[in-house]
């Protein structure tokens, strides 16, 4: 357990800030395309410079995801992915990278099922996540109104609760979301699903990020639709982290070395 020292997430953001760059948050779907190759990809991506790993739990009905991540989840489930299996991957990554922050990305249902199954309920499940080396939770379909079932036990177990802010969120909702969040807040860059086309230079996005900056002391990560180093470069000066998902999933289809070189290119762009 992390005890009183700042969590891995806070520590990593502090490191990146000291280096004068944004952190690279890399998303990959666990078990895509199967256990072994997923593990190889995860290790390669972290080796190549992912600062924060966002590990996706496959779900049968990923309504917030675009085609690339949907297909990854289909491949993963066909290969027998389970929440337990994905947690197994997390602990393997943890063995190799002691200080790397790992955020579990999931839809609510697989997590709530696991809470029901755990003899100690949500508290027990969250404590186990922490022991396995998970640092934070990002649950797409638990807006603040519905989050209490999982958020309180997660915080109690020492997990960070990552808040999602959308371009459509009005001020009152943004305040609620950032107040409930810990670790960092995730600014969704566009009105759409993951992997959609993003204009990283848009004035609206710049204004959205500036507005968010005025609402919270927490680090801000921006993501959805970031694919290219040029986009990372454009966004890095405005935020603490840039999230890349679909583009890494796509690169991962060609195996660890292609994924690693993609990560290295994106990472090199984080100095802005």
């Amino acid at each position, binding site marked *: 357990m992390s005890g009183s020292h700042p969590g891995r997430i806070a520590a990593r953001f502090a490191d990146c800030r000291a280096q004068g760059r944004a952190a690279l948050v890399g998303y990959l779907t666990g078990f895509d395309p199967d256990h072994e190759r997923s593990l190889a990809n995860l290790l390669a991506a972290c080796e190549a410079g992912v600062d924060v790993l966002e590990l996706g739990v496959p779900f049968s009905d990923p309504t917030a995801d675009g085609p690339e991540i949907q297909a990854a989840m289909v491949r993963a489930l066909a290969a027998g992915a389970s929440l337990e299996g994905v947690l197994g991957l997390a602990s393997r990554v943890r063995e190799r990278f002691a200080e790397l922050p790992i955020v579990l990305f999931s839809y609510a249902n*697989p997590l709530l099922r696991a809470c029901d199954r755990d003899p100690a309920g949500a508290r027990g499940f969250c404590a186990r996540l922490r022991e396995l080396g998970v640092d934070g939770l990002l649950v797409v379909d638990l*807006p603040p109104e519905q989050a209490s079932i999982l958020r309180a036990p997660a915080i109690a177990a020492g997990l960070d609760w990552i808040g999602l802010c959308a371009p459509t969120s009005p001020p009152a909702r943004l305040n609620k979301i950032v107040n409930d969040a810990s670790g960092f807040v995730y600014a969704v860059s566009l009105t759409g699903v993951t992997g959609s086309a993003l204009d990283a230079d848009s004035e609206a996005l710049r204004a959205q990020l500036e507005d968010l900056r005025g609402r919270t002391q927490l680090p801000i990560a921006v993501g959805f639709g970031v694919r290219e180093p040029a986009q990372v470069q454009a966004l890095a000066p405005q935020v603490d982290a840039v999230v890349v998902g679909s583009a890494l999933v796509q690169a991962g289809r060609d195996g660890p070395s292609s994924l690693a070189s993609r990560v290295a290119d994106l990472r090199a762009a984080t100095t802005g």
Partner: protein
Amino acid sequence: MPVQPPDTSPPALGDFGQFGGRYVAETLMPAVEQLAREWPIAWADEAFQAEYSRILSEYVGRPSPLTPAPRLAAAIGGGQIWLKREDLNHTGAHKINNCVGQVLLARRLGKTRIIAETGAGQHGVATATVCAYFGLPCVVYMGAEDVARQALNVFRMRLLGAEVRPVEAGSATLKDAINEALRDWVANVADTHYVIGSVMGPDPYPSMVRDLQRVIGDEARAQCLDRMGSLPDAVVACVGGGSNAIGIFAAFLDDPGVQLIGVEAAGEGLEGRHAATMSRGEVGVYHGMRSLVLQNDDGQLQEAHSISAGLDYPGIGPEHAHLRERGRARYLAIDDEQALAALSLLSRTEGIIPALETAHALAALEPLVAELGPQAKLLVNLSGRGDKDMHTVMGRLDAESLALVERARAHSSQAQAGQGGQ
């Protein structure tokens, strides 16, 4: 029609006991909140009510009649059976009641584009119809599997000017069409209204669709008092997502002497592939709500199966889960074969060809009469007509007439090929 306060007015978050809620991505929350705010205001607005009622009467053809079914009753061992004829609505099912109201709301909110999901195609056809009536662009998401088995409805939607987008993801059925419609909505939430076709999804949809389908129950209750001289002993309806059932149940919730009975699809049997959410589902969070759902131990939704595309859904609306938990309604399961038999029985005894969905409710009548006695008064929601299902039914019930058609086709195409060769 007077405005009735909802019988189970949900608290702020649309909770029906432990069920309901708003489990959607943050991007959609403001739109969902807007609907939750604006729907009760619109519904209480006399001008809105007047327009809704006018369209239901002069375009949909309401009120729908109540038809006695004495020859059906005689064939199944008695009972006084009355059919609420939603099959006689324009477009052939109850679905249009909801579409009229939601499109009116969308216009009121300034939305200029409509999307919908569809399983059997009935909700898609009804939405496409109302969009044609108002001149609004309409996109309908439909599982590729359903596109194949409901070809006639696909063509109807296109003829009505809607764009039908087949969904190949997942099981390529209704649940996947809902996923894809939600993704469209996330991307186009500023100008688009999503017309959900049943009493499911995030709050306020389950309550809003219930309010809009309640016209079935309000009419039927008055018709029962008028024609039967009393309330029925039981009200019976099929349940997919549960909208025709909630619509007719809603008017009887406060009549404790009236049993409410929902009938779900047991498909190939409860031990095989089925869509029996009430019998075999467990609590889960999906499609914006917390309700019962068919899922595995790991929280992955399972593929449902029913011969009727409209019941081929692994979930159910949260109010049904709550009604059952409260003991106010109970739910039976009817398999594919029983539904087919009921479809042909009603056709022969009453001259009414019901939808395969509706046939599930009809198949439950025989055991219910056996249980409640030959004097029992049973009100059945005849949710839709069977034209759309004729190809499926022909393949299962009348292989001979199908073979006849195929032979004649082969013969005429051979003849044409012969001519072409000369």
